[in-house]
Each structure stands twice: as structure tokens, then as C-alpha cells.
């Protein structure tokens, strides 16, 4: 069975988002008539370059940044790699990377490969998290050292939505002359960010998490921060990122950022209310359901709930039959054989880690959709539990 677009109940916005119709509209001319190369010396190209400049301004406005601090990339992963590798190249004598145990694979795998590639010349400290997914600031302070080349800590966790105090952490790094990078892919558009008031040096964001298309991202680099490019090539992006610009997507991302600024209030009120209602009712109506992550220090759109004694993929495929889209931290869904590293770092017991479901909402979700999901989930869990050898309840 295929899901007809428009029939889906989409609650997986931390995976990707619908492209806003306004964004599609802004992009279309650059997929059709306006195909000039922004670097060309004639108006047919130059007028395209102007649109990139405008998009850069829109992104900068959302972040409270200067346009020249914005570099367009191909995705969040590229931005993360660029930031971390740039810091290592800028401070070759420093061998220490400080991060957390719950980072997105974009940073997690990068750190692992740096450890392996250079024969462990780079030392990586991964901060522990508490059961509610929060960090211990004392541990962080202790881990900062003269040898630290960069701190890379996500702003909001993609699986649980838990927020880290990155502003405070960046200030502590700055006091010690250490560069600070944050993967803010999940936070941008949901949490107010003002780089003018911040000590963060590098910030990554991804277009497709905020209603722009896939294949475009941004790396914010604070003015005056030493920078070494990741992709060598042409002079595009002031030599910071070679490669002819993905014009349509960049224009789309600019529009998406201006929309995000308009809708941030709605994210934190209406969307948050939808999320809270979904979460509270599920926890109340399904026995042995547990919330993963801090109740309040969290994104307004994300809820990660474990249904004990059942397995996540099975839940997702039953939801799929109803065209409900969500995701899971279970082993079976990831292609790996172990459950989510985030839930394991939080010490979520086996009984619960395999049965975790993440709902992540957006401004496109409605009350009716939440009602429908609330109506359907208890029966799905009950059916699977009846089948589970570990379930002894009724």
C-alpha cells in the first residue's frame, strides 16, 4: 500500500519537513527561467546573485547575525564537518575535542573517525547526560582544557528535543579561548537565537528541517573566527565554500527563514499545546508509557515516549497502516542492531528503549490529527503487548 500525498498524518518533522508553499513559490523562477550563474558578468547572472544576497540577509535576520557571517552549504552534516575540521586546522597543536554522548551522527561519527584516522592523536571527551537527557555543567567545566581545539554541543537533541544551555557553555569556552560549535539543526525556528548576544563561534542549520528543501544548509561563522574551508574550489561564498551555488534552494531557505521568524510564536504556543495534549493523553491512557527527556527544557514540538515491552518498528508499521508518520529509537528501525545511542546514554532501560516512539510536530499539524493519533495508539500498543512474551499485564 502506498501513502497518497495529502493523506499522511505527518508527525516526523525532526526527520524532515514539508516544503512551505511560499518557499516553493519563491524557488520556482530559479528552476525555470532564471538559470544564470550568479558569478557571471552579465545581468542575466547578476540578477540571480542579488537573490542570493537577499536570501543571505533573511537567514542572518533569523539568527541575529551579519550576512557576511552566513555561508551556504549543502546540508547540516557538511556544516558540522566544516566547523569542527576548521577549528582543528586552525589550532593544529590542540588535540582535544569536547562533545556529548548524544550528538547527531553528523558530529558523533565525525569524532569517531577523527579518533580512528589519526591513530588517536585526537582525544575526544563525550559528556554524559542524566536520565532526563540534561548535561552536568560541572563535568563540562572540568573537561575544558588548554588542549581543547573545539567544543561541539548540539542546541537541541533530535530524538528527545532536550535543550542544552549552549549560550552558557559557549561563554565558558570563550573565557578560556576555546572555539564553540553548535549543531542547531533542530533548534533554529523553534528557539529564539540572537548571535549578536551570543558567544557561539560556529552554528550549523539545515534547510529541510525548517520547511525549505533538502540539500541546502548554512554554517554561521562569527566574524573574526579563524576559518579554513572544507571544500576547496571556486571563489563562491567568499572562498569559504567552493562550488556553484544551489540557487533555487538557497532562495527557498531564505524564504523559509523569514517564515520561521513569523511562525516562531505559533511553534511555541499552538504547536506546543498540540504536543502537550498528545503527550499527556498518551501517558495517561496507555499503561507503562514513559516520557524520555526533560519535561520543560525541551523543544516545543518533540515528544519521545517509550511503550514498555513492545518494539518500536512494529508500532511504526501499524501506524503506517493508518498513514501516521513517526519514528523510533529502536534497534530494528535504524538498520543497526542496537537501540538509539541517545536513549542508552540516558540510561533508559532495555524494557523501554526498544519501544520508543518520537512524535515531532510542525505548524501544519492540526487538532484533528492529534485526536486521530490519540484514538488509534492505545489499541496498537495493546495488540502488540498481547503478543509480547514479556507483557504480564492486562
Amino acid at each position, binding site marked *: 500500500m502506498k501513502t497518497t500525498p495529502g493523506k499522511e498524518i505527518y508527525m516526523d518533522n525532526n526527520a524532515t519537513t514539508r516544503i512551505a508553499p511560499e518557499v516553493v513559490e519563491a524557488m520556482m523562477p530559479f528552476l525555470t527561467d532564471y538559470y544564470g550563474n550568479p558569478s557571471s558578468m552579465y545581468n542575466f547572472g547578476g540578477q540571480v546573485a542579488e537573490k542570493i544576497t537577499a536570501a543571505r540577509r533573511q537567514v542572518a535576520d533569523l539568527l541575529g547575525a551579519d550576512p557576511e557571517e552566513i555561508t551556504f552549504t549543502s546540508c547540516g552534516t557538511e556544516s558540522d564537518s566544516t566547523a569542527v575540521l576548521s577549528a582543528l586546522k586552525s589550532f593544529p597543536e590542540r588535540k582535544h575535542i569536547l562533545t556529548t554522548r548524544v550528538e547527531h551522527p553528523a558530529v558523533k561519527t565525525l569524532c569517531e573517525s577523527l579518533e580512528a584516522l589519526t591513530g588517536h592523536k585526537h582525544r575526544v571527551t563525550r559528556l554524559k547526560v542524566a536520565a532526563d537527557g540534561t548535561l552536568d555543567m560541572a563535568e563540562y567545566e572540568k573537561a575544558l582544557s588548554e588542549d581543547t581545539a573545539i567544543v561541539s554541543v548540539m542546541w537541541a537533541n533530535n530524538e528527545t528535543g532536550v535543550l542544552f544551555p549552549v549560550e552558557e557553555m559557549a561563554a565558558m569556552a570563550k573565557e578560556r579561548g576555546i572555539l564553540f560549535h553548535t549543531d542547531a539543526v533542530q533548534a533554529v525556528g523553534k528557539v529564539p537565537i540572537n548571535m549578536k548576544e551570543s558567544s557561539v563561534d560556529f552554528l550549523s542549520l539545515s534547510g529541510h528541517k525548517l520547511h525549505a528543501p533538502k540539500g541546502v544548509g548554512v554554517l554561521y561563522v562569527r566574524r573574526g573566527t579563524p576559518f579554513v574551508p572544507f571544500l576547496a574550489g571556486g571563489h563562491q561564498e567568499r572562498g569559504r565554500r567552493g562550488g556553484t551555488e544551489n540557487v533555487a534552494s538557497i532562495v527557498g531557505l531564505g524564504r523559509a527563514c523569514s517564515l520561521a521568524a513569523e511562525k516562531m510564536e505559533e511553534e511555541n504556543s499552538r504547536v506546543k499545546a498540540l504536543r502537550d495534549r498528545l503527550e499527556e493523553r498518551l501517558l495517561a491512557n496507555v499503561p507503562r508509557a514513559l516520557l524520555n527527556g526533560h519535561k520543560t527544557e525541551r523543544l516545543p514540538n518533540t515528544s519521545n515516549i517509550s511503550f514498555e515491552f513492545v*518494539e518500536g518498528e512494529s508500532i511504526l*508499521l501499524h501506524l503506517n497502516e493508518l498513514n501516521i508518520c513517526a519514528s523510533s529509537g529502536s534497534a*530494528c528501525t535504524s538498520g543497526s542492531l542496537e537501540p538509539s545511542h541517545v536513549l542508552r546514554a540516558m540510561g533508559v*532501560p532495555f524494557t523501554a528503549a526498544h519501544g520508543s516512539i518520537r512524535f515531532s510536530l510542525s505548524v501544519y499539524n492540526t487538532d484533528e490529527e492529534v485526536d486521530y493519533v490519540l484514538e488509534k495508539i492505545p489499541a496498537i500498543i495493546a495488540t502488540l503487548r*498481547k503478543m509480547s*512474551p514479556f507483557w504480564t499485564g492486562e
Partner: protein
Amino acid sequence: MWQYTDVVQEHFLNPRNVGEVENPSGTGDVGSLACGDALKLTIKVDENDTIVDARFKTFGCASAIASSSALTEMIKGMKISEAEKITNQHIADFLGGLPKEKMHCSVMGREALEAAIADYRGIILPMAEGEVVCECFGVTDLEIIRTIKDSDLRSVEEITNFTKAGGGCGKCEDKLQALLNETLGTIPAKEKVAGKPQKMTTLQKIKKIEEVLEREIKPMLRQDGGDIELIDVDGDDVLVSMRGACTSCAKSQMTLKEYVEKKLRELVLDTLTVEEAK
């Protein structure tokens, strides 16, 4: 998303023979919560050695549930002597194939059937013997060699897909490669598969610890409004989390060492140390 066949989807959505046979002639209990899938197969065998009923309870993904459902359909009405010949490939074929990463689900079905037949006959399977190669999932060399032969495996990746071995920390990959070389006989193995003999596999340890926690320790803590949860077992280090009244109890550290650890050492393994997850 996994590409499941229509048969897999149909058996997942409408599983046959869910439940437990009353007064079963044989029970096969394989897998564990920790590993992410588990199957309890119960069979009823009549005086002619024919399986007259088979039921399952499965914790796991769609292919685990579909494999269990398929297995029960396949063996109902079979003589034990025929059922014995069922391999994981038969189960996968019945389902029109499984994604390669999910082949271990069909292996779990075969293991449960073997265990149930052994239980019916009153014999103990030699499977748990052998040396543990993959500590994460408690897979022994005997199991791996057998699966390499049964399913004609040619790479470490395939071993992981079929047995889960190597799918956790990945530290045993060299050993798996050596086992593969040895079993296929193509390249002589440089050295005999290393690894000191262990009394218990990690899997057996986890199961035993879970049992003791449930039976002995939890009821005791609950009398005082406390509780305990198993978080992880890494070698002999048992990581637990204290719950309820224990979290605010000044004596919880003492309880952990003097009661929980002592009890686990006494009833599971005397080299265990118990720590609280921070």
C-alpha cells in the same frame, strides 16, 4: 524503510497462532528484551509425534512477528521428524524472502523450534556451549559456524545479518572473519579464534540477573516503596538505576552494595560488581 514482501506484511498485520498452548509438550524460549527480540514458542505433540498445535509470543519487529507466525503455520500438522529439518531459509522462503539485515529473525524462529523440540524430548541443547565470540549479543562460535554452513554465508556482514554477531560494538569482527575463513576452509586462519572460556554468555548473564532482580530483589525493595531497574551489563559490571523511594534514601548506596550486589554474586556470578548509573 524496509522492503517487506506482501506475505511478511500480511503475517505481521494478521499474525496466526498468537498465544500459548495450554500444557505444552515443548517450549522454546529464545532471545531477550535486551537484544531487542524474543520468541516464546509452545507446541502440543500427540502420541504419533505429530505437532497438533503451535503458538507464539514475540517481542520484536515486523519480520520477527511474521517469522514467528509463519513458523507456527509451517509446523502445525508436521511430524517432529519433519519439523526438525526446517531451517531459517525455509521460514524466509515461506515469507517470500526477508531483507538481508532481517535474516536473524528467521534464525530466531529456527532456534525456538529447535529449543521446543529439545524440550519435548527432554534433552538439553548444546548451543549455549562453545565460546562466546560476540559479547554484545552473546553469540557463540558453534552457533556462528553452524549458521555459516546452513546459510552459505560469505562475509562478516552476512554473519551479522543472520546471527547479530558483530552488530554491537564490532570488536569481534576479526574473530568473525577468522571463523569464516576456517569454516569455509578457503584461507587458513592465522590463529585459532582467541577468547578465554567464559562460564556464562553476556546474554545468559543478563537473563539471570533480570530473573534474580524480579524474583528476589524488587519485591524486597518495593516493601519500602523503592525499586530498581537494570540498565546495562558490561562484562562483570552491572549498571542499575534505583527508583522510587530509593532515589532519596540515604542508605541506597549501602543497599546497592550490601544487598543487591551480594545477592547477585550469590545467585548469578561471584565476580559481578553493581554500580548505580549516574
